[in-house]
Every structure is written in C-alpha cells, then in structure tokens.
C-alpha cells in the first residue's frame, strides 16, 4: 500500500503520539464505538497508528500536520454517541416473531431472512420485527430474559454484588424501550418489566459512578469493568473523559 511521502514522514516522526488530521470523507467514521460527525472538514486528533489504519481503509483523505502550538486547539469535540445511535446498533439483535403472511426467502446484504410462513415462529432482526408489527403483519414473542421472575432475580443479584453482574442482553435497555413501546400487547406484565429494568439500570449506574469516583480519587492508571453495556458507558463517557484530561494536565504540572 503506497502512502504519500509526506504522510510516511509524519508517521515516522510521530509514532505513538497524537496527530491532528482532517477528515475529508463524506461518511461517518466509526472509531471504537465513537461516531465522528459527517462535517466536511473537522480537525481532530488521533493516535498516529489509527490515522495510518484509517488512511489505508480509505476513510480519511488527508493528514495535515499542524504545528505544535495549535495541536491542542483542534481536539475532537464530539466525543460521544447519541443515544439514538446506540438504539440503532441495538436494532440488529434478533428476536422471535410469528408472522401472519407468507414470503419466500429474502436475500439482504446483512444476511438471509428465511421463508416466512403464517403461524410459524422465525428469528428476525428487531428493526424488521418492529416494522412488521407496526404494519400489523406479525406478533412479537418477548425474549427469554423479559420475564418478571428472571428480572427480579437479576435485580436482587445486582443489588447484592459489588461488581457488575452479567446482563440479560448487551442492549437490554434499548430493547426494553423499543419492544415495550411498540409491542406491549404481546408482552405480559409490561409495566412491571419496565419498572424492574429501570431498577437494574439505576443500580448499575450507581455502581458505575462509584467506580468512576474511586478511579479518579486514587489516580489509577486504568480500570477494568466487566459486563458494562454501551448505553451505560455512553451516558458517562463525555464527563469522564473530560475529567481525565484535566486531571492528566494538572498531574503533568506536578512533574
């Protein structure tokens, strides 16, 4: 893969440091679950290795080395995802439905969706299930974890443990909201389920804040948190990253 000579030189000089570059591709670029805006020219700073990788993937068109004095002024502003984007990712999960129409096998880019026969259950992505439900062409079967007793057990387990317990589904919050808004007639005891999921969410968010607080107050270098879902990370990401930035700069004053 040939890179322009100026970029090669930049990469060799700034290996493992942050490099400011301009994104001139006209599509969203996803970096480790963060979506960068579609604006034409946005300056942001990335580790030079990922600039290299993004360049080779064709998603950015030029890397502009900016002088040291201005390097910090072009920091990435939009460091979090919208909750709507997390919901979009959640709609890829599979859910069981019972259609009331028949259709041959459909060949989509993301995969095949098997032949639909009325009355026979079939697995489809959530986005299709909601669409069919709104057109009154199917009946949605709630996922296994969306059951009052199971959620009560999970809630009690979550309250007992100090660490994060395994989640029913990596997108439990979004699926609850989507399915209970559109298909509450197919799900028994919908209100109780909503309350239970909210309880689990509140407990986990409280634990997350506690661990963020201990992370900062003890000035640790890294923390390992298992079983966190994307939505929970998303609510705290901007705040935590800004705080860590400030703490890093104040700490570099001490040396």
């Amino acid at each position, binding site marked *: 893969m040939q890179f322009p000579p100026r970029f090669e030189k930049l990469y060799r000089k700034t290996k493992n440091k942050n490099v400011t570059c301009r994104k001139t591709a006209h599509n969203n670029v996803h970096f480790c679950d963060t979506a960068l805006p579609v604006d034409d020219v946005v300056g942001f700073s990335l580790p030079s290795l990922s600039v290299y990788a993004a360049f080779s993937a064709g998603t950015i068109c030029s890397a502009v080395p900016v002088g040291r004095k201005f390097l910090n*002024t072009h920091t990435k502003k939009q460091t*979090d995802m919208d*909750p709507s984007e997390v919901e979009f990712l959640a709609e890829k999960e599979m859910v069981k439905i019972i259609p009331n129409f028949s259709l041959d096998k459909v060949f989509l880019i993301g995969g095949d969706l098997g032949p639909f026969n009325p009355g026979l259950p079939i697995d489809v992505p959530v986005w299709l299930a909601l669409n069919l439900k709104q057109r009154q062409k199917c009946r949605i079967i709630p996922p296994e974890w969306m059951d009052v007793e199971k959620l009560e057990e999970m809630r009690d387990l979550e309250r007992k443990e100090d660490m994060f317990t395994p989640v029913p589904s990596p997108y439990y919050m979004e699926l609850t909201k989507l399915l209970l808004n559109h298909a509450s007639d197919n799900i028994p005891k919908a209100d109780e389920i909503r309350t239970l999921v909210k309880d689990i969410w509140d407990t986990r968010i409280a634990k997350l804040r506690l661990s963020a607080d201990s992370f900062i107050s003890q000035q640790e270098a890294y923390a390992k948190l298992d079983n966190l879902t994307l939505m929970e990370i998303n*609510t705290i990401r*901007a*705040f935590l990253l800004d705080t860590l930035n400030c703490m890093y*700069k104040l700490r570099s004053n001490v040396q």
Partner: protein
Amino acid sequence: MDTQSYFPVPPGVGMEENFLSLDDILLSHERLPIRTECTFPRLGFLEKSSDTQDIPEGTKMELPLWLTKGLYERKRKVVSVELPKVYREGWRTVFSADPNVVDLHKMGPYYYGLGSQMLHFDSPENPEIAQTLLQTFIARFRRTMDSSQNAYNEDTSALVERLDCLEKALFRSGQSGLNGFQSWEKGQASQLTASSLVLNYRKRKITDVQP
C-alpha cells in the same frame, strides 16, 4: 443530532495556554501583584499613585498575566511575581482540609487556570502549588459528578455558583450526557424538530412572507 454551528476551542488546562481559546484569553486578564526589579524609564504614567516620570526599582504594582508572562525572565530580573492570596500557605491548608467548602468562583473564577500559569514564574513553592491544585480538583470531583448527573430539568444555578470555570465546563458535559439519555428515553430523540442553526438565523417561513 445536536450539532453546533462551530466548535469552540477549549482552554488549555496545563502550563500551556491555547492561543485561540476565549477562556484562556479572559484568564490572561487576571491581575497579579508584582514587584519591579529595575526601573522602567518614562513609564511613570502607568503608576497612578506616584507622579514620577519613571517607575523606580522596587515598586509594587499589579500587572495582568499576559504582560507579566511577557516581561518575566529568569536571567535578567525585570519583575518578580508574588503569589496571589489563594495560592499561599494559608489557603493551601484550607484546601487540604476540606476543598468542598470553598467557593472557587469567588476566589477568582479561574483558580485552576491561573494556578497552572503561576508555575511559569519559578516560585520556590511551585511543587506544593501544583500538588494542591491536583488534590483540590480530585476532592471536588465527586460533588461535581453527583450534581451534574442527577439534576435533570431543574434550575442548576445554585449548584454551579460555587464552581470554578473548569468545573463548570465539566458540569455542562455531565449534564449533556444526562439530558441526552433522558430525552431519548422519553422518545423525544425521534421527534423532528427545527435545527438550532435555522432557529438562530430566524428564517422567515413562506407563509409569513406571502401576503
């Protein structure tokens, strides 16, 4: 998505200021007490208290930060800077005892920023100042996080008034995370609303223009 029409440059928190940041420009207007180490000929008009032509050696004046940084030189002593009250021994013990009690907005709205800039002036107490800044920030973090993540749809002026400018920026980013999540949960995220850019420019609707 809530995009802004421009991205404001954030202030540099450490010893480097961001040239284009408005917060840093305002910070550099803070006045510092200094003592001149040599005479400033024919600049007597700057010093209102005495009516001499020159500013003699050893005068105590107040100069803004941008001027002090420009005049300060380690080898040729032009000015020597005294620490403002907040960064001296007395206040440092207050901060180490309980930082949450202090009203940082009153102590100069740019406590952390000015403190970091003071480290340029080679005072012998620099390590302690830097350490106090860091410890104060860490101790006040908990309260900022709790108040920003829990105050939804209420008047936050009482929570914010005792915060330094840096902490106010953190409070705002915490609030934006919270507001985004809550509005998504209520279902407002999927409602189409007019973009803030359009509202700012106040485009006239065609029904208003036509008679």
